[in-house]
């Protein structure tokens, strides 16, 4: 069913980078998304390079400054169960816990979750669409009930990752290794809109790998939360999601991140709404105003006007669970 490919296990990051330099080589972490993509012919692979044996890419460690370094190969289940994650960055723990099903969380990794391909049913359904370098986005005319309300242009996907939304609210840093060495980018610069690059969801160049995801030390008073609305209670991608990371000092908000999920081709930060919180108490009127403002500028498509209300709903739920 899947066209034949070579399978190699890399033992180190360097070896993986070398192996991935060959044409049509794809990294496999948990392979829960990779297999589906190959089977649905979203892309092809001549070689699949398993990252599974790379020790340096697993595990969660506390950094000297009190932050966390999470290896890209760390399973979502490990993240969910990790006391420091749950204690300091509950939004990430909640986002990871909301992914798919227990089996998929055992197998799926954080790096794979960030790098998974979109779930657009045209992209996945054998359509030669814009994201596959075809000339049309089928969601423009077709059934776009699950597509974006922000950031769409020539392609209308939403980013599928739950953890990406949470990590964006938490100001994570993504470390990358590749043929030209290593680099680190703030997660907000990791994801790209279709107007910048129509066929990739992130800045990874061919042969590049995500090696670690780092979280800065939580400021005193940081509270974070992830809310996900989906049609089923399990085994379902978000219809609308919100990650909020709010710092409250002496009863007032001093820093705020509000990020919408399943809203745009990338995790969608709503800075205007964030600014409205600064210096205020998180009371009900403020929450309502901010939730409404979060959707300013949304441009729903023919079949997804409901998403505006729903996203507003999850923002107000998220803020409500903090305030």
């Amino acid at each position, binding site marked *: *069913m899947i066209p034949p490919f070579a399978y190699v296990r890399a033992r180190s990051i360097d070896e993986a980078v070398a192996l991935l330099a060959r044409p049509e080589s794809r990294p496999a972490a948990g392979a829960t998304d990779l297999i589906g993509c190959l089977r649905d012919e979203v892309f092809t692979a001549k070689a699949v390079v398993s990252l599974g044996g790379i020790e340096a890419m697993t595990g969660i460690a506390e950094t000297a400054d009190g932050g966390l370094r999470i290896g890209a190969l760390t399973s979502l289940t490990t993240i969910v169960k990790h006391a420091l994650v749950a204690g300091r960055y509950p939004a990430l723990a909640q986002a990871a816990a909301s992914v798919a099903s227990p089996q998929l969380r055992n197998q799926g990794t954080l790096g794979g979750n960030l790098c998974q391909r979109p779930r657009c049913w045209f992209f996945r359904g054998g*359509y030669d669409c814009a994201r596959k370098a075809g000339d049309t986005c089928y969601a423009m005319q077709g*059934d776009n009930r699950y597509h974006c309300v922000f950031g769409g242009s020539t392609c209308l996907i939403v980013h599928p990752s739950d953890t990406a939304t949470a990590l964006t609210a938490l100001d994570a840093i993504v470390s990358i290794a590749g043929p030209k060495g290593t680099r680190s980018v703030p997660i907000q610069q990791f994801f790209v809109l279709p107007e910048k690059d129509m066929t990739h969801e992130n800045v990874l160049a061919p042969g590049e790998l995500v090696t670690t995801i780092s979280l800065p030390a939580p400021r005193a008073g940081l509270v974070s939360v992830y809310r996900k609305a989906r*049609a*089923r209670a*399990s*085994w379902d991608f978000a219809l609308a999601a919100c990650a909020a990371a709010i710092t409250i000092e002496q009863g007032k908000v001093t820093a705020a991140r509000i990020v919408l999920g399943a809203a745009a081709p990338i995790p969608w930060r709503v800075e205007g709404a964030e600014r409205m919180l600064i210096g205020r108490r998180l009371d009900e009127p403020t929450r309502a105003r901010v939730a409404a403002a979060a959707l300013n500028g949304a441009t729903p498509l023919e079949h997804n006007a409901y998403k505006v209300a*729903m996203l507003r*709903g999850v923002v107000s739920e998220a803020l409500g669970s903090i305030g």
Partner: protein
Amino acid sequence: MICNDVALEGVELEAALAEALNTPTGTADIPAWTDTKVVGQRLPKIDAYERVSGTAVYPSDITLPGMLHAAVLRCPHGHARVKKLDASRAAKMPGVRAVLTPESPGADIPWYPGEKGYVSRLLDTHCRFAGDEIAAVAADTPYQAFDAVRAIVVEYEVLPNVVGLDAALAPNAPAVLDGPTNRAGDPRAQGRGDVAAGFAAAEVTVEGTYSTGTQLHVPIELHGAVVRWDGPKLVAWDSLQGVFPAQNTYARALALPLSNVRVIGHYMGGGFGSKLDTGKYGVIAALLAKQAARPVRLFMTREDTMRAIGNRPAVRMTVKLGAKKDGTLTAIDFSCTGSGGAYSAGGTGGVNWLPLDLYRCPNVNTVSTNVYIHAGPERPFRGPGHPQGAWALEQAMDTLAAKLGMDPVALRLKNVPDISQGRQDQARYTSTGLATCLTEGAKTFGWTEARARVPQAGPVRRGVGVAAGMWRGGGGSPPATIIVRLVADGTASVNMGASDIGNGTKTWAAMIVAEELGVPVDRIGIEHADTATTQYTGASGGSKTVPTEAPAIRAAAIEVKRQLLALAAADLKVDATALSIADGAVFVTADPSKRIVIRQFRPLAQRGVLVGVGVRGPDTHGMAVNPWGVHFAEVEVDTRTGLVRIQRYLAAQDSGKVMNRLTYDNQVIGAITMGQGLALTEDRIMDAAHTGRVLNANMHDYKVPTALDAVVAPVIVAVDPKDTTCNIAATKGLGEPATIPAAAAIANAVAHALGVRVVDAPISPQRVLDALAAPRTPAKGVRS
């Protein structure tokens, strides 16, 4: 499957015939069960261990020496003609042993019967839905077969497709079949009385429009078969609800005598109506096997089952009800439009039955319109048409209750029928549990208190709803022939043609024999679902298996008992009427010390076997046998996200005598879950704008409720009207009636919670939010 008039008349004919036959071991002289000791208990399935441990051999587990694996090429377009097909490269690929194209012998077997003969062929060059079969390959491994299918080069002429009801009926719509219009025949009118007069006499009327989505069966075991030729004989292990209909299909398609076709289906992993018969897959496998002279395994992919092997059609309905101020119905006007896909005119089959039969009403008019679209054909699905009809009728009844200022349960109680008004002969029901289901259900659920509870403030709203239903089938009917054997060691076996579709057929069959023969359930073996070794019976569908097989099993067991008692009476030198059987022994009722342990009974050992044949007797003449049910749901709706959670659920069912309370409850739980899917999440979505493909032909975009969604511990009230008229097992069908009111009950609860009615299924978060955003009119969509 009993879902249209023709079939129903057929059943009556059967009964007359069976009555005329002088069956030696019929059920005529046997009084119906009243109290039973074993039957009705809560027993785990006798094959539960095999099923959960993986030792049960399902058709998809069969491997035969030399077996090949097949894959099918399907059309990716909603409508296309194959201009050129080149399989030459595929045929030469490693491992490929057989290739079938539209040119191959046998590919022209007529397929899909229409009004004037068959409308398509096994492998057709005119493809009328995305998923239509074009070619097939058998190879040494599944991967080789799939690779070879991919290597077949097809040049298509892509034709315009139409997958929506309105679009299909538009003047210049592309023709699906070669008729003048995509309407499948004239709209069919059925009814009684004078509807106009009924509305004139009404003091209150309500009218509304409702729709349901297309629901897919999604059985866990895929559709498929392993087939092997044994000289001129074909043997097929096929995942089916009935081996005999499939025997027929294989024989017809391949021009074989019935006696040269053996179909075996010991285990099967779910069907819900989609496996009443084999499909193209079975015949394709047989042709490939013939070509390759090797056994062939052909199981469809999950995606292909979702495109091509059946669905519960989406239906659009309007209902107008008229009633007196006291709630007495005076008129029902109902119309429905649906599509059975590209090849079936059965888009609205069964949809009008509840408007015709559920409530007492002298004036009823129903009109059913069927439309062809470029989509996979429907197949019967758990209570065909009924959940859709209930969706409309039961929401309309709720709206009527509101307008009358009446309690919804009271309104329904006001209109309980005792004769089947939908049937030509106006037959009396042998039992109508509707009123009891309503009252017992309401009491146990705490309906009045829950309904009266003041809605809480805040974004999460709570509501309760009720809906009633009945199933047009569920009475069972001849034919069924059962053989029960008692052998030397005191164990027994049941030989029956019926498939166990997961409802515990084998288990209650054993329980019935245990009841009559006193042999413990775990000492009873079952042979079943094999056309070569068991006797003809229809497919396990229409909720007919229990009411069809149970009486015959009982009759066969009683016949064995008669023989055993005769032998024992001779041995003990008493009259047979003085004897009883219990716990593996025959004893003198008045003096239990005079006993024979059956497994040590010499005369039995010498004979080796006692054989009893039981035949399903005719139905009670001129009476209707129907199961009933009423469901109550309590839901929470989050008005911020539109998400609906079912908090509490109760199902009250009248299916007559309970065979096994555990498998009974399991049936009801599964049926509720399926109704929940129809109500809230399940909906086949087609790419109407472009290709006509199913966009969500996979298990995460097509949303069957998960274990976390399913109702936790629903309360199940088994109402037993002690129906000694329906059959000697005093029992009726359950699997279908239990799903019929479910979706409507949930819809009514959502409407109660929101004060706004979502009239289209599924009630997705999208629809809830859209309904909340729309200008507020109470009971949206229902004009009065």
